[in-house]
């Protein structure tokens, strides 16, 4: 164990624990682990001030591999555990690593409420659209018709988008990236780390054993540029191999247009504004799905709002200012008392 605590001297290696990583060879989780270990030394935070909290599932093994404080909790409850930790210790940098089953099925309630409160947590959801640890059942993000061990005749549960759920719950930072694009993931994770408030990142993550190729359309170099939309703040929504396609609005209906055709020019395209107070644009982007629309990657929303623990601290400051710091003697004898001689 290293004794380093001076943030500036840390390297990626300082964040690698001595535990053997036990994900399947080729699992997308490795890439996320590597990027987060690489990111940690860049944040200027002493290593001992990081805490990684997880639930249950393949992704939830994550804390064991980080040479930081960490807790492998119970299924779905990581956001609740992390919220308690952050409230008790606002100075810590608290990260939640979760999956589509952990966060959206068994832990759906905690997931939405952490974001509703804007607790300053970094929630990284590794979405592989399948239950891996229990060996291949469908998850809340599995596509309709998908055949799994529990849907031998095809999935009839409609999937939902983690990003849309996060936006619906009022998350102040929402982003999406993909395991195979290291540069993009590094950028998004850094933005998340620097955000004050709940930062939610959905990582499209390939499960090589039970759902291999789930994201081929947006990761395969030969087709991906036409299938994904890289979000850039303040820039028009442009995509395609030749950067010639864009998103235009007809009333409230989005449409894909080719620039130069049908009187479409870049000036007609929707501009991306991640800092819009209203989350309507972000929510509208979160609805985009293949094959009709390109799948957006990048930062959907980033707004600064008071965090839960900031407001909690303020409540304490105000109460102490109004009533004075409490004393036991004062507390015990408050209210109606009488004396027996």
């Amino acid at each position: 164990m290293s004794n380093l605590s001076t943030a500036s001297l840390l390297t990626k290696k300082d964040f690698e624990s001595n535990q053997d990583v036990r994900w399947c060879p080729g699992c997308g989780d490795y890439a996320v682990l590597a990027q987060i270990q690489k990111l940690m030394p860049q944040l200027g935070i002493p290593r001992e001030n990081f805490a990684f909290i997880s639930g249950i599932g393949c992704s939830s093994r994550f804390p064991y591999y980080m040479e930081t404080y960490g807790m492998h909790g119970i299924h779905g409850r990581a956001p609740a555990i992390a919220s308690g930790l952050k409230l008790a210790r606002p100075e810590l940098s608290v990260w939640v690593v979760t999956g589509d089953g952990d966060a959206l099925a068994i832990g759906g309630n905690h997931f939405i409420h952490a974001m509703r409160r804007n607790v300053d947590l970094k929630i990284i959801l590794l979405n592989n659209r399948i239950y891996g640890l229990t060996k291949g059942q469908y998850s809340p993000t599995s596509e309709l018709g998908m055949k799994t061990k529990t849907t031998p005749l095809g999935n009839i549960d409609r999937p939902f988008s983690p990003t849309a759920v996060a936006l619906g719950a009022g998350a102040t930072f929402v982003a999406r990236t993909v395991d195979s694009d290291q540069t993009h993931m590094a950028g998004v994770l850094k933005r998340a780390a620097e955000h004050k408030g709940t930062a939610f990142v959905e990582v499209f993550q390939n499960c090589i054993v039970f759902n291999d190729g789930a994201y081929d359309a947006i990761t395969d170099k030969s087709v991906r540029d036409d299938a994904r939309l890289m979000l850039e703040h303040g820039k028009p929504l442009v995509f395609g191999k030749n950067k010639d396609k864009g998103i235009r609005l007809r009333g409230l209906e989005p449409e894909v247009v080719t620039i130069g055709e049908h009187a479409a020019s870049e000036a007609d395209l929707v501009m991306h504004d991640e800092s819009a107070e209203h989350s309507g644009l972000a929510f509208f982007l979160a609805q985009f799905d293949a094959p009709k629309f390109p799948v957006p990657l990048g930062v959907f929303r980033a707004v600064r709002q008071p965090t839960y623990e900031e407001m909690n601290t303020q409540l304490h400051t105000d109460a102490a200012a109004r009533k004075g710091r409490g004393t036991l003697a004062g507390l015990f004898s408050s209210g109606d008392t009488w004396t027996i001689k």
Partner: protein
Amino acid sequence: MSVEAATAATAESGARRGEPRPVEELDSVTIRFVGDSGDGMQLTGNEFSRAIAKAGHDFATHPDYPSEIRAPTGTLFGVSGYQIQFASRAVFTSGDAPDVLVAMNPAALKTNLSDVKRGGIVIANSGAFTDNNLAKAGYKANPLDDGSLGDYRVYKIDIAELTAHALKASGLSKKEVGRCKNYYALGLMLSLYSRPLEKEEEDIRHKFAKKPEVAEANVLALRAGYAYADATEMFVTSYKVRTADIAPGTYRSLTGNHAAALGFVAASELAGVPLFLGSYPITPATDILHELSALKHFNVTTFQAEDEIAGICSTIGAAYGGALGMTTTSGPGMALKTEALGLAVMLELPLVIVNVQRGGPSTGLPTKIEQSDLLQAVYGRNGECPIPVIAANSPADCFDCAIEAFRLAVKYMTPVIFLSDGGIGNAAEPWRIPDPAALPKLEVKYRTEPEGFQAYARDGNLARAWVRPGTPGMEHRVGGLEKDFLTGNISHDPVNHQRMVEVRAAKVAGIAQDIPPLKVEGPEQGDLLIVGWGSTYGSIVQACEKAAAEGRSVAHVHLRHLNPLPSDLGDILKRYKTILVPEMNLGQLARLLREHYLREVVTLSKVQGKPFKVSEIYDRILELC
């Protein structure tokens, strides 16, 4: 309006000032106030108990209310009651049978009359005995007129009408005037028991400081009720209960939930460690959350979680961060917290889980009293999952138990379950205010020395070190998977698992050596020993006193620590021919005793949502010795 004017107002309605009434001296009195759940009976009862306490009496109360907030008026299921016993001696229960019943409507009379002592006083709010209300209560004729109450001394008083009369010059609306009638009833009772008004008037003005016109109306109603009882010849006698011989000190009236909240803050202050409460509202535990939420000028954070599971999980997170973490709940919520309790056992982190028990199973009887979660507390988890369990025996005892729960939690690095119940939680009794300097010490040590650190190395108590995130050089991982005996890293090694299961069990079992010697009340050996736990305390004490006074060989021991059981209990059990365990369940402690000591025990079971009457235990004693 002055007192004189108020008196005049009541005199107009038929009463006239008579000669001073003779005063009869009593040892104890039990009064029950009953009415619609919206009639303010809990408030009237509370106010009366405060007035009684300030006069130097000991008292005990039992609020009994429906789970509906405002059930339809006049219905049998909407009846809300508050019983108080006060006496010239120590009081341990709210009394078996009321000497006085104040019934605000026919439904209240119907559901409570059978409990009242023969020859007792019934004060009936006669104006509410309308045809409609009589029908709702299932009366074919008005019991106030048909002679059916011949066994009781009945006083018919139209409280609503007399209150309205007294307040006719107040300018308040009819609805607002209606709300003052409980103070009229209080005034009647204060007069009947020869209590002065001044202090109560002060309290009303304080309570309604923001609404002076309401305060004055309530004061008028109070005075009018008092003057009515004073002036009328309806009460031929008034009563006086001598003040109790109570230990000198400053007192206040506290419910168990309030006392527990104060105890938890005390634990936090004694340890110099922040308190964190993660909780989800549930009857009858919510008042602890209410009380602590208002104490942000202490180092207290309250978190109203999205559900019961988040209540305990946020607490685990806070405890991991080094706070004194606690969660509060009742039976169904306890069931939801089960998995997280297992995690806390594996993590070996200190936290306190308060279960203010209610009638079960499932939603059961949310507002009624029961002790049926004992086996759940001791055993109700997957795996070999030992957790220390303690139980409070009275409202004031909740204060001490709160501190004891955290003492065990931090010393042994374990979750601790603290059992209370709806009776204790909501009932009030006088609490002698302690000197903070005289409270037990609560030492909390976080490990900060990285040299030789192993996450699951243990001290002499088998407790591992508490290491807070943020401590340099000691980064490590914990989790719900089985872990290595020393490092805490994941381990599936068969022998290691057995060793870990055994050491977790041994750690909790070892607490038996850290429990003060039991106090047996009564003969050191003999025919009968009553073993009790929790809120049955008062009824058992009084039943034993009564039986002992008649020469019966009966002793009583009351357990605070239920897991592990105290190390001296086995020897104590051997000294008596028969063991009786009165419990508000089907015999859960009895099962534990049989299992631990291979000793036959007799169960006295009551699961009616009501506390034991002294007589129920007394009668059983007479049968057994």
